[in-house]
């Protein structure tokens, strides 16, 4: 919010082009439906986001007109498909502001990206006794790969705790960042609580101790602009389906020299230079990490989703979602018997809560009957739930197409749930 103070003559600033949420909603066919006779209020975006017509139409068009396998056919369709697939890689590169296209590896999603790093970075750079530092708020997908690696290599997993607001305790994090820490793997935004982690500071501290850093961007990429060069992270992973793109596609960014130092993750076609029964040499980046026929149309669809988001502008999206959270938080707080779980000072558009006397699953079912889609459960963060002494929460998570009116519906549905249970 910049106000012009130095202007010599009074003038009326042209209004900032309003974020036209109704126009955006019109881009998402799924939002037009009713559920149990009520208009759908989709607040489960942290699990997966709905798709704009642009993405749906792109996927349809490529399967209809431009589909063939990539990187090997000499024929017209294969060339077209290859061009589109590589153009999508370029869009991901620009989206993350990576230096080079070959630093972008297409994967199935964040989970596969983290498993790739665990397996391949682990094999090249880690040995028994080396430490991997994560936080208490990680998704299972940023916990279990490191445990599997520990079973294979004898690496040690360290966990930095959070405070009662769900903020990372930076003192503890620094204390745990020891001489044997080789990798810090941390989520940018907590999927269960909405906490935005100070990744800039985390990366700075880790690098000062010689540790590499992987950022789990599953919950940050769709909601705010990311610049991997400015962050200076070593790896950054995100999923397409939370970014309004298709399922089964995501990307891993890795610094080139680091990716080059790592062995392939899987073997097969596409990832080789030359194969014989005695010796095989591997392809250049990024193909070394992309064995088998990739999710071609998924990648192209993800490219379309990125185009769509960039046209709206990630800053505008972030502002809109932040306004939704600012609107929702006090309204939820004034509901008697409702407790927010996750009250960090820096939060993304996620409201996780508990209702006195109403189990989260009962809340989920009742909200569903009001047309409100939320997630009820542990959000694949069981250790974090244990930290807060709960088995789960009800979570409403916002996206660019959500409105204040929808939050009003959520609040009313919560009151109805309380009413029903008060009988």
């Amino acid at each position: 919010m910049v106000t012009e103070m130095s202007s010599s003559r009074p003038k009326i600033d042209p209004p900032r082009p309003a974020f036209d949420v109704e126009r955006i909603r019109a881009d998402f066919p799924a939002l037009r439906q009713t559920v149990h006779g009520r208009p759908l209020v989709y607040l489960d975006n942290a699990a997966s986001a709905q798709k704009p017509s642009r993405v749906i139409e792109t996927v349809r068009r490529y399967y209809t007109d431009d589909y063939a396998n990539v990187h090997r056919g000499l024929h017209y369709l294969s060339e077209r498909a290859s061009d589109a697939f590589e153009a999508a890689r370029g869009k991901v590169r620009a989206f993350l502001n990576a230096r080079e296209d070959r630093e972008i590896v297409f994967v199935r999603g964040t989970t596969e990206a983290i498993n790739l790093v665990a397996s391949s970075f682990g094999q090249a750079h880690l040995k028994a006794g080396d430490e991997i530092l994560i936080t208490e708020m990680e998704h299972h997908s940023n916990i279990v790969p490191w445990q599997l690696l520990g079973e294979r290599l004898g690496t040690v997993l360290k966990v930095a705790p959070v405070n009662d607001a769900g903020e990372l305790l930076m003192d503890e994090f620094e204390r745990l960042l020891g001489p044997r820490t080789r990798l810090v793997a941390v989520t940018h935004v907590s999927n269960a609580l909405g906490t935005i982690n100070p990744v800039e500071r985390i990366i700075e501290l880790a690098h000062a101790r010689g540790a590499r850093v992987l950022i789990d961007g599953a919950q940050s990429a769709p909601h705010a602009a990311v610049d991997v060069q400015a962050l200076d992270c070593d790896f950054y992973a995100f999923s397409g389906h939370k970014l309004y793109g298709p399922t089964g596609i995501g990307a891993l960014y890795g610094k080139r020299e680091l990716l080059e130092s790592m062995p392939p993750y899987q073997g097969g076609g596409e990832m080789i230079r030359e194969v014989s029964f005695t010796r095989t040499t591997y392809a250049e980046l990024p193909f070394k990490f992309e064995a088998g026929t990739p999710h071609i149309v998924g990648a192209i669809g993800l490219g379309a989703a990125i185009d769509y988001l960039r046209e709206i502008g990630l800053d505008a999206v972030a502002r809109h979602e932040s306004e939704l959270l600012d609107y929702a938080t006090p309204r939820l707080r004034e509901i008697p018997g409702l407790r927010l779980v996750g009250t960090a000072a820096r939060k993304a558009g996620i409201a996780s809560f508990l209702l006195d006397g109403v189990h989260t699953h009962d809340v989920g079912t009742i909200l569903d009957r009001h047309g409100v889609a939320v997630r009820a459960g542990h959000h694949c963060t069981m250790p974090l739930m244990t930290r807060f002494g709960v088995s789960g929460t009800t979570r409403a998570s916002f996206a660019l197409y959500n409105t204040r009116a929808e939050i009003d519906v959520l609040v009313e549905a919560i009151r109805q749930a309380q009413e029903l249970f008060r009988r």
Partner: protein
Amino acid sequence: MNELKELYQEVIFDHNRNPRHFGKLAHASCHAEGFNPLCGDKVSVYLRLDDRGVIEDVGFDGSGCAISVATASLMSETLVGKTRAEAEALFERFHSMMMGEEAGGDAAALGKLEVLSGVKEFPSRIKCATLAWHTLLAALKEEQDRGSVSTE
């Protein structure tokens, strides 16, 4: 909204607020722990059987939603005095009701458990109602396995 009222009947609220047979059973013949990894619901079922295999008493504890707590409570009430075979037959009958299948034989045998029939309209909640039952089967199996080991 009518399905919601069908699901959350007064009896269910009653058993959720004041679960019967709640708590660990002293001198249990067997017990088992049930866990639904999808939602984190946990229930333990304790059984005391007499020499003839009749269930003398039942206890359960754990945490879960209204449906899972009420089911465990209603199940426990119903099981007292039943033989192992009768308990297993009740499981089958309850399971059929959840699957929306025609209840074979004596449908009235479910008694109070009939109030849970509304759950079948909520596919994502059927697991909440069957967790305690699967735990019951596991407890009975534990008792049987141990029994067979001891007789060998």
